[in-house]
């Protein structure tokens, strides 16, 4: 059904139920609004959009549905008079200096005032005596006097971000927006995502300037890019002040991935690139600072308590290095690496790439290691994040990537979130999950912590740490015994069902209840909710993967999906939420020791021949070493020379005390980074690299969406592009690598990676494409994979039954607590970027551990006091916070903080398949800190 109406004499036909405002917009007629935004539920509070439809009163076009035969006048004299009066009334109490007009210069109310010729100073309406300002938030300024109570921020907070922080309070003149129960914004539960400030039409909620003064939008250069933080890969528009060479403001960009939404890191975490500690010249270690070792107190780990907010103290570290020219530094790197290769063989070299770098840089880097170093010892932090998930996915369904995008959760009847604090780690993906949970998707959350997403869950199962296998085996037991499996799907698309059935038979819910600490009835209930769903999607995070049985955990989740046929249809799928902005892409580009780009095995002679032909050298036929194996190798002197591009293993790898020895044991270490990292203290040569905003490249997000981030600002000092540096080193080691642009590298990469076939910089604009993309000119790429069979040798998905195994180090009387590590919303991994971002480190300035208040009380430690947390591998001192979201007997420590690095404590035992260390489980002891 459609409605025919006439707007300002123009005939418009729209589907029934469309509002007049929307219909007018389709006809190209702009009706002014203050309270309405197409992304929000219309409420019609401001009445600025009134139009004349020939009735007694004017109709608010944003809420009034278009009717057949309606005649609408949007600009009649009566309408204009009404709007003008409204504007006058609103402006009568408007502050003289709107914060929005002073910054972005797009104050909607003042613009309306100008268009109607209303000058606030000449209004005869008496003014009020002013309302309060609130500047308690580090990123958002609140001016209640400029608020017109349009409710945009309230709806943005409730309906877009689902944080439910903003509401209304007060009556009459004192009516105002309120945070929580009328707390100051900075003290409320606000997560500073900035969605409210970005939708506010007036100067009431505005972004505070972070790097340089925010100038009117028209004076700033807009650069399309993506967010440099997590795997959600939000599309952003960077607003750049060319005179200051600085990004001053970031807005979300409408893209299928994030629909303009951003989180605190994406919106406000960009100022790290301008930090004065940026490296600007190549550095070479002075002769007197050999033999190598840590330079600063923090990295030495002498046990003294560090002051919070610690960054690398440049005064401690820089004297050990002398400035050098690029030629000197690059020659030295090439010479030393060639020497080691000659003396000890290619296997003595290794490289760590980074999932923070672009696909192009990852590709060039692995090419350097494989073709020039002549070894497969190349890895990156995927090993520490989803290596086990990828191993399990490759083994069972033949592809390591997600089978469906996270946004499709809206079509799911049930969504299972396992071991993922989505609201902290993938905040924007979490908004879509919360959205779905409010609109009919049943949310099941399984975690050992009561995470932020658990608040939105319909079923929350708090399991004992590391008991996932038992739980999901019990689920499958219930599904099979209650006949909730999809027999047709199992027969057609899978193999190994009998073996699985035999295994899960041994896991009745009662047994799992004993192991997991979840009542058997709850296990049954959740399992049958999952089993009865017509479409169920599974998300998982590090809580699944970072275990010595991480691969088993992931196998169980995959079996669960195969058992119920929940793959390859809308609203179904397997989605390991990827961590880094380009961890998917870096893995695709071959920064993995076992595979060439696009997961082509290095051990397959045919594939190797193809790459040998493309690269013109002989390649190593053996799979290389993984991250933790390389560190162990360095300690055992099997690895002698290393090149690290943008990785900081000192803080990110488990068992730091071992890493410290390993890094010091290296004969040669070249670190290429934007800041002096903890790892750089062990370097022989430090090369200054470009930050995310200073380069062009493609990035692949967790959805497999390949997007371009364009260069926005010039690099500081002599800092150079990462791929340029890599190809310089290659050339100096006798392998010609001549690239002029990143695009050229991308084209070489896509030619070798079948999944990326057809993608070019041209067709990746503006929103990127999902790989695989058989028809890049017309389609957005394939969203649903494996609707019909899997890319395994048999074409079937494989059930891999798993037995429950306890974690490698279980608590005992000496070390009675279980340590769980993870991330915070405001910080990123080793904090190299986020701790140098003023807003982010203001919100979350110091290291802490979270414990159940009962445990703290039993230990006689007051909340907020310093405690010393020790494991068999080391000890750290940090503040203890009490939280009931933490289960008794467990401790949670975020691992971002160098002054109390959680990874001093963690266990470097590896999963036998995925080679991922057990970050999520080790035994620790808590003592009150001594002075």
């Amino acid at each position, binding site marked *: 059904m459609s409605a025919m109406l006439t707007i300002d004499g123009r005939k418009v036909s729209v589907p029934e139920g469309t509002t007049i405002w929307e219909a007018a917009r389709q006809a190209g007629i702009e009706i002014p609004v203050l309270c309405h935004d197409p992304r929000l539920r219309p409420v*019609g*509070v401001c009445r600025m959009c009134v139009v004349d*439809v020939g*009735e*007694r*009163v004017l*109709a*608010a076009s944003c*809420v*009034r549905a278009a009717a057949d035969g309606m005649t609408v006048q949007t600009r009649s004299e009566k309408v204009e008079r009404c709007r003008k009066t409204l504007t006058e009334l609103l402006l009568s109490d408007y502050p003289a200096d709107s914060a929005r007009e002073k910054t972005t210069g797009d104050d909607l109310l003042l613009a309306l005032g100008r268009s109607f010729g209303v000058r606030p100073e000449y209004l005869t309406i008496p003014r009020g005596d002013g309302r309060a300002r609130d500047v308690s938030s580090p990123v958002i300024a609140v001016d209640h006097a400029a608020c017109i109570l349009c409710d945009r921020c309230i709806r943005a907070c409730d309906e877009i971000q689902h944080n439910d922080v903003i509401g209304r309070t007060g*009556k*009459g*003149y004192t*009516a105002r927006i309120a945070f929580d129960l009328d707390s100051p914004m900075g003290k409320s539960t606000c997560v500073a995502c900035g969605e409210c400030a970005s939708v506010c039409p007036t100067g009431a909620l505005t972004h505070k300037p972070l790097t340089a003064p925010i100038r009117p939008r028209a004076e700033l250069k807009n650069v399309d890019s993506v967010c440099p933080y997590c795997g959600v890969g939000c599309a952003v528009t960077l607003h750049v002040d060319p005179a200051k060479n600085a990004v001053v403001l970031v807005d979300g960009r409408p893209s299928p991935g994030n629909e303009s939404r951003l989180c605190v890191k994406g919106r406000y975490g960009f100022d790290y690139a301008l930090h004065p500690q940026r490296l600007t010249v190549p550095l070479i270690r002075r002769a007197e600072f050999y033999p190598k070792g840590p330079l600063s107190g923090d990295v030495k780990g002498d046990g003294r308590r560090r002051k919070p907010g610690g960054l690398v103290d440049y005064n401690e570290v820089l004297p050990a290095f002398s400035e050098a020219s690029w030629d000197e530094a690059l020659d030295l790197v090439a010479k030393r690496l060639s020497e080691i290769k000659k003396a000890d063989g290619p296997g003595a070299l290794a490289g760590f790439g980074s999932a923070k770098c672009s696909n192009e840089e990852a590709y060039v880097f692995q090419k350097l290691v494989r073709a020039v170093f002549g070894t497969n010892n190349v890895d990156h932090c995927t090993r520490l994040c989803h290596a086990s998930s990828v191993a399990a996915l490759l083994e069972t369904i033949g592809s390591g990537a997600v089978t469906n995008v996270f946004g499709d959760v809206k079509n799911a009847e049930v969504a299972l979130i396992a071991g993922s604090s989505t609201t902290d780690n993938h905040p924007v993906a979490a908004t879509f999950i919360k959205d779905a949970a409010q609109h009919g998707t049943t949310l099941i959350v399984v975690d050992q912590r009561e995470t932020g997403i658990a608040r939105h869950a319909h079923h929350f199962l708090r399991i004992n740490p590391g008991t996932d296998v038992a739980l999901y085996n019990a689920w499958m037991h219930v599904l099979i015994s209650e006949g909730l499996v999809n027999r047709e799907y199992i027969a057609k698309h899978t193999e190994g069902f009998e073996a699985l059935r035999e295994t899960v038979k041994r896991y009745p819910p009662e047994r799992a209840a004993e192991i997991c600490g979840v009542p058997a009835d709850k296990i049954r209930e959740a399992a049958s909710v999952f089993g009865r769903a017509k479409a169920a999607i599974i998300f998982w995070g590090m809580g699944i993967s970072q275990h010595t049985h991480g691969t088993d955990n992931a196998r169980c989740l995959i079996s669960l999906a195969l058992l119920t046929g929940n793959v390859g249809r809308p609203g179904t799928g397997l989605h390991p939420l990827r961590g880094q902005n380009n961890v998917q892409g870096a893995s695709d580009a071959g920064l993995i020791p076992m595979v060439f780009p696009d997961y082509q095995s290095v051990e397959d002679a045919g594939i190797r021949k193809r790459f040998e032909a493309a690269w013109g050298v002989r390649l190593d036929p053996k799979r290389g070493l993984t991250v933790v194996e390389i560190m162990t190798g360095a300690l055992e002197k099997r690895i002698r020379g290393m090149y690290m591009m943008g990785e900081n293993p000192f803080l990110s790898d488990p068992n730091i005390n071992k890493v410290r020895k390993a890094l010091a044991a290296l004969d040669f270490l070249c670190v290429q980074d934007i800041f002096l990292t903890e790892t750089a203290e062990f370097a022989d040569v430090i090369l200054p690299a470009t930050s995310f905003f200073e380069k062009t490249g493609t990035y692949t997000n967790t959805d497999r969406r390949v997007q371009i981030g364009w260069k926005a600002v010039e690099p500081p000092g002599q800092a150079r592009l990462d791929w340029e540096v890599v190809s310089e080193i290659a050339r100096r080691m006798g392998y010609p690598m001549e690239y002029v642009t990143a695009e050229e590298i991308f084209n070489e990469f896509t030619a070798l990676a079948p999944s990326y076939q057809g993608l070019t910089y041209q067709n990746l604009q503006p929103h990127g494409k999902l790989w695989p993309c058989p028809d890049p000119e017309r389609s957005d790429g394939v969203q649903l994979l494996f609707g019909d069979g899997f890319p395994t040798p048999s074409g079937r998905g494989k059930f891999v039954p798993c037995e429950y195994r306890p974690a490698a180090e279980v608590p005992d009387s000496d070390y009675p607590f279980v340590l769980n590590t993870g991330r915070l919303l405001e910080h990123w991994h080793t904090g190299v970027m986020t701790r140098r971002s003023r807003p982010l480190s203001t919100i979350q300035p110091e290291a802490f551990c979270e414990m159940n208040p009962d445990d703290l009380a039993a230990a006689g430690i007051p909340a907020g006091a310093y405690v010393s947390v020790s494991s068999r591998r080391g000890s750290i001192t940090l503040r203890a916070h009490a939280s009931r979201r933490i289960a008794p007997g467990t401790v949670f420590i975020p691992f971002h903080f160098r002054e109390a690095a959680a990874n001093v404590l963690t266990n470097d035992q590896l999963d036998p398949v995925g080679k991922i260390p057990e970050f999520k489980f080790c035994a620790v002891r808590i003592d009150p800190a001594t002075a």
Partner: protein
Amino acid sequence: MKLRQRFYLVEVLVGLGVTAAHFFANLGRHTARHVFRSKTARGAVTFQYPEERRPYSPRLRSLHRLVRREDGSPRCVACMMCETVCPAHCIYIVAAEHPNPEIEKVPERFDIDLGKCVFCGYCVEACPEDAIRMDTGILEFSSYSRQGMIYTKEMLLALEPAGPAGTPRSLIPIPADRTLER
């Protein structure tokens, strides 16, 4: 206390005397009226409240009601005047679009927290639509919880104006927490 007051017996007898004096005076007046047909004697009578009520002044401010239009929808246009003027901050209104395009708005919620209301009548004075009145004659509202003191739009809309002499014509709303099946 004086010594006499400390012996309660004396004071009890004094009190009994007062009661007895009233009792016999009234007995006399009733006898005069009913037996001797006196026109002037008026003995005191107990009102059989709540079955029987005193007549109220038409100016009395009793429980609010929302005035209905002919189609039963509230006359209120959610202009927030009453909410703004209310000194006790006891009115809470959420506005919505009226289904009839000739009328702009209608309250989606209209709550009065009688636990806060001071019965000043400002809301009635402020209303430009004569949509709220305090003429139900209902003075009895009680509940076991604060929540029960919040009267919603539906409850307020169902009320009728009081009859002559201020007799309520609608049932006294019983909040959910006072119903028997709990």
